[in-house]
């Protein structure tokens, strides 16, 4: 048996935006918006930052690879960059694995070789539930969408629903 998984971001995590040499153009959007602040205390946002940093690293390396190839860099240098890209990819997959039990991961939207925007599949932390109930309070009402829009205005009318049919 394995010990319980740690679903907190790693204490070793350092936001690349705070590092010297940070390349702003390589930093991705988070769900189409600006990323959370580096000092965010929100657990969900800190998890997002981990993924953004991993994709950022890949973009930086991809950019360097492209530049090196264009400049006709020696094969040894290219090989070194490819190895770094492979390591960054492995690190990203390990990150995905860590959060797999809660279904949290970032799906990238590319722009050329750049990871432009990271869309997170689990949009937020799970909400606290009220005390467990054996009854569902929400259920489908078939036929609701068949009510003409014109009927949704004006005086109140009562519709009865049953077995997927609408009884006016």
């Amino acid at each position, binding site marked *: 048996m*394995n010990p319980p998984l740690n679903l907190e971001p790693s204490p070793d995590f350092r936001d690349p935006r705070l590092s010297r040499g940070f390349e702003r153009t390589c930093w991705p959007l988070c769900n189409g918006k600006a990323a959370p602040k580096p000092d965010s205390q929100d657990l969900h946002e800190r998890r997002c930052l981990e993924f953004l940093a991993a994709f950022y690293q890949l973009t930086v390396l991809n950019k360097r690879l492209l530049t090196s190839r264009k400049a006709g860099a020696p094969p040894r240098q290219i090989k070194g960059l490819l190895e770094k890209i492979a390591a960054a*990819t492995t690190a990203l997959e390990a990150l995905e*694995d860590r959060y*797999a039990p809660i279904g949290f991961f970032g799906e990238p939207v590319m722009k050329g070789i750049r990871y432009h925007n990271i869309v997170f599949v*689990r949009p937020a932390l*799970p909400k606290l539930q009220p005390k467990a109930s054996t009854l569902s309070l929400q*259920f*489908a009402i078939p036929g609701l969408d068949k009510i003409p829009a014109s009927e949704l205005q004006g005086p109140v009318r009562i519709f009865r629903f049953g*077995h*997927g049919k609408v009884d006016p």
Partner: protein
Amino acid sequence: MEKLILENFLSPGDIVMLTAAVRDLHRAYPGRFLTDVRTSCPSLWENNPHLTRLERKGRGVKTIRCHYPLIHKCNTAPYHFIHGFIEFLNEQLDLKIRPTEFKGDIHLSPAERENSSPVQELLGERRPYWIIAAGGKYDYTIKWWHRRRWQQVVDAFRDRLLFVQVGETGHYHPPLKGVLDLRGKTKLRDLIRLMHHADGVVCPVTLHMHLAAAVPLPEGRKRLRHCVVIAGGREPAHWEQYSGHHFLHTIGQLDCCATRGCWKSRTVPLGDGSPLDKPESLCRDVTPGGMPRCMDMITAERVCEFIQDSLPVNGSSRGSLNTCCTQILSQAMVSY
């Protein structure tokens, strides 16, 4: 005539099982009962010939909140889920209902039978397809398989088999590449129509598995609808598996499911205040890759083999598909 309203507000898969009980009640006692239902999924009852409109306060109407306590014996007693509501009604009403078919009882309207598939409507051509449900509810995370494995399965059949991804909005259904993505776009009735025309289904233990058996086949089709279920060690196979389905389980292969299904709920606690976060509901053996070990043991290659075996054999394509599967999977496995 005795008048019954049967109630149940559990998940859609449970309601599919209730449809079977209503069918078999009427077959065992024709003309004795008038039945109506109150459930969380009215769509599953559309066109059902066994229902009569009854009012709760109507004269002589008895309302029964239906359960399936048989589930508490499912690890040891030789019963399928389909027996669950039937045995309950037998006890409540002193009856002797027996299952008459090994499937739920979903009915299509003439229009639903005649209309082309939603896939044909979208693509403009008739194409065979499989439904893929690569996830599930957020509160039962133990049923999830790793999203990269689902992708490996899709990739292995690239250009050979169309997968249609479905899943309810608000549930965990990670997007897959190379599929027809209908996540969040199928109401329950749309899903039934989609299922009607589907050649097969690949999914965890979920509604889609029950529908794969319960939804009628298109007219003229002789082969059953295939279903490959990625189950792990949570539920005993005999409780869930339908005839002809491939139920990939690990009962007997791990300490935590050595002789029975574990019936745990979550891989790790989610912190949402649910009782499913309690230690007794959590997986006891999670891999470093974040999966319950029983689910981890089911490889994408194995799932592909079962799908492959379910495809029609037509000479050369079988061999080349196997080669294709092997190549793509070997590449994928390197990084996994």
